[in-house]
C-alpha cells in the first residue's frame, strides 16, 4: 500500500484476466499475473488507464522485428 494514496484496479491488456493495482498518480505498474510492465496515464485524478508497454532500452518491449 502506498501511503496516503488511493488504490485502483485496471485490467491487464496482455493477459486480459489479470487485474493490476495502481495508486493515485502512478506512472507505471506491473501485472502480477503475466509480468507485463505498463505505462499508466490519468484521464482524471481518479480514472487511470493503460497507455502502452514500458519501453525498455530500445523502442519496443514487444516482439519487434516480426512485422
Amino acid at each position, binding site marked *: 500500500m502506498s501511503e496516503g494514496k488511493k488504490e485502483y484496479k485496471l485490467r491487464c491488456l496482455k493477459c*486480459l484476466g489479470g487485474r493490476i493495482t495502481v495508486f493515485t498518480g502512478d506512472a507505471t505498474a506491473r501485472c502480477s499475473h503475466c509480468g507485463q510492465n505498463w505505462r499508466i496515464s490519468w484521464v*482524471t485524478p481518479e480514472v487511470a488507464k493503460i497507455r*502502452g508497454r514500458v519501453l525498455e532500452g530500445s523502442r519496443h518491449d514487444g516482439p519487434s522485428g*516480426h*512485422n
Partner: protein
Amino acid sequence: MTDRLAIIDLTGEQVEIKDIPEEVQRMYLGGEGLNTYLLYTYLPPGVDPLSPDNVLIFGAGLISGCDVSSSRFEVTSKSAEGQGGFGTSNSGGFWSAELKYAGFQHLLIRGKAPRPTYLWIHDGEIEFRDASFLWGHDTYESIELILDDIGDRNAQVAMIGQAGENLVKFANIMHGLKRAAGRTGMGCIMGSKMLKAIAVRGTKGLRVNDPEKLLETFASHRRQITSTKIYPVISRYGTLTIFLIQNQSGMISVKNNQYNYFAEAEGRLDDEIFEEQYKTKSLACFGCPLRCSHRYRINSGPYAGVWGEGPEFYMMAGFGPAVGNADWDLILAANTLINRYGLDVGSSSGYTAWLMELWQRGIITEKDTGGLNLDWGNKEAILTLIHQMAKNEGFGGMIGQEASRAAEIIGKDSGRYLYTQRGMMHESPENTRASRATTLAAATANRGSDHLKGRCALEFFAMPPEVLAKIYGKPVASDFRSWDGKAWMATWTQHFTTVADSLGYCKFATIWPGSTHNLNYPQFCETIKAVKGWDVTPEELMETGERIWNLERMFIQRETGVLREGDIPPSVYFEPQPLEPLKGEKLDRDEYDKRLDEYYGIRGWTREGTPTPETLKRLKLDREPSHLL
C-alpha cells in the same frame, strides 16, 4: 404527424405520404427494423442494385430525437457491395432528429432523377431541387453550397461525395464532416439515382405520449451514462481508446492480417498523442453527453493545414497497422480525404492492405499498379490509391468499380489473400479469431463481416460468470477463448444491437461496448413508454430484435440464396496467430461448424441456415410481405 412515410419517386418527381400504422411500428419499431420491412415489401425480387427499381430507404429511429444519445438514422437498400444482399448502415449526428421535426419518420426513394437532384425537406414539404451545381463537389464543399442555396444554416444534410457519384461500390452516405453510413455501398445506390443530398429542417417539434415522463427519463438516462467508468475515457478520447486494447491484446490486423500486434505503434500511435498534437475540439451528436467525436488539424509536415473530423478507431487501425503505417499524419490526411470523397474506411483500407500484401509477395508489380510502389506504409501510394478509388482513375479506380471481382481481374494467386464475406471486404482492422462469440456474431451478421452487430465486447474483459449470467440470462464463459455459451451470447448481441439501431440509440450509450452499467433493455422500455405510451417488456423487445433479424435473413435468402456458406469467417481466421499474447490462437474449422449448428439451433433454423416455418410463424413473419404499409 411525425409517424409518416414519404414515398419519393425521383423519376417523375412525385411524392406519396402514408401514415405508419401502429401495428407495423410495434412489429418493427423504426430505423433498421422498419426499413427492413419496407425493403422486403417494396423491392421486387431480383432487381439489380443499381437499377432505378431498387429502393433506398432512410429511417429515423423510433425514439430518435427524444431520448439521450438517440441520434441514429438508418439507410437500407439492396447492397451495392458484395453479393447484392442486405445493405444497411447507420449514422449519428443531427439528421434523424431534424427529419422528425420536419414531419417524417421514414423516406422510401425509388426511380432515378433525370438530372443531379437534391431533396429539400422542411416542415412537411418535400422539394426536388437541381443539384447540377453540386455534382463533382466533395462533402465539405457540398454542405456549404447546399446551406447557402436553401438559406437556412440550421438544416442538416445527408449526402454523397464524388465516390457515390462515380458509383464506387463501397461509397458511403455522409452527414456533416465525418458521420458516415458506411458499408454495403449505400452511397453508390444514392449516386445511381442521381441523388446528391437530402437536406432536412423542421420547426414543428415532436408529439410524445408523456412529455413530463420523457424529461424525467432523459435526465435519468443521462445520469446513468455519465456515471459509468467508461464515460470519462470515451468522452475524452472517443473510440480511439479501443486501439490500445486491440493492439496490446494481440487482436488487431497488421499488414492484412499477417500479424496480430504492431510493435511500431508503441509510443507513436495512441489516443493521447492525438489529443496532445492534433485535436482542436470535442463534438457531440444530438442529445449526447459522450461527445466522443473530434475536430483536428495537422500543424506541420507535408500535410500541414489539413483538418477534419474524426477519426474513429477504424480509421486509426485501418490506415495504421492494417497497411503497415505508424504515422498519425498519414492517418489524419487519409481520414480527411475519405470523408470528403465519401468512401468506406473498412473497405478502402482493406483493399489497400490486400494490394500491399500482393505487392509484398510479388503477385503484382509496377506494371499492374501503373507505377505505384505499394511497399507497406508508403504514404503517397496510400493517398494516391484513395484518390484513384474515389475518382475512378487508374489501378485504384478498378478496385472501386470492380470490388467483388478484383481478385478475378488481378488473377494469379491474389484471391488467397483477399478476405471477404458475402463478397464484402472483411473489415480491415478486425482480427478477433481468438474471441469466439465476436467471431461467430460478426461472421453470421446479415450484411457480412460486421463488428457493429458482431462485437461481443463483454467477452474481452473476463467478467465474473455471475455478472455475465445476469446480463445474458444464461451461463456464458468468462474466457473469451472458450465456446461455452458463446452461440447464445452472439445471438443475444445481434438482437440487442438490432433493437438499438431500430430505436435510434447510439450503441456507445448502451452496454454494447463493454460497460455493464450503461443503457439496456429496461431503459429502452422506459423511453418507449414515455414516447409512445406502450407497455413493452424487455422480453418483447428481444423478440422484436429476433423478428427483424429473421426478416433480414429472409431477404438474403430471397435475393442471394447464400446462407450457411456466407456465415464462415475469412480463411485467415483458421490459421494460427503468429505473435504474443495470442500466439497460436486460431479457429478450428470442425469446432466452428459445430458451433454454427448450435447457433442455428438457438435461432430455430435448419442446418442449412434457413428459418424454419415454425420459427417464421412464432415471429409472425409467415405473413410477410403483409403490405400493411
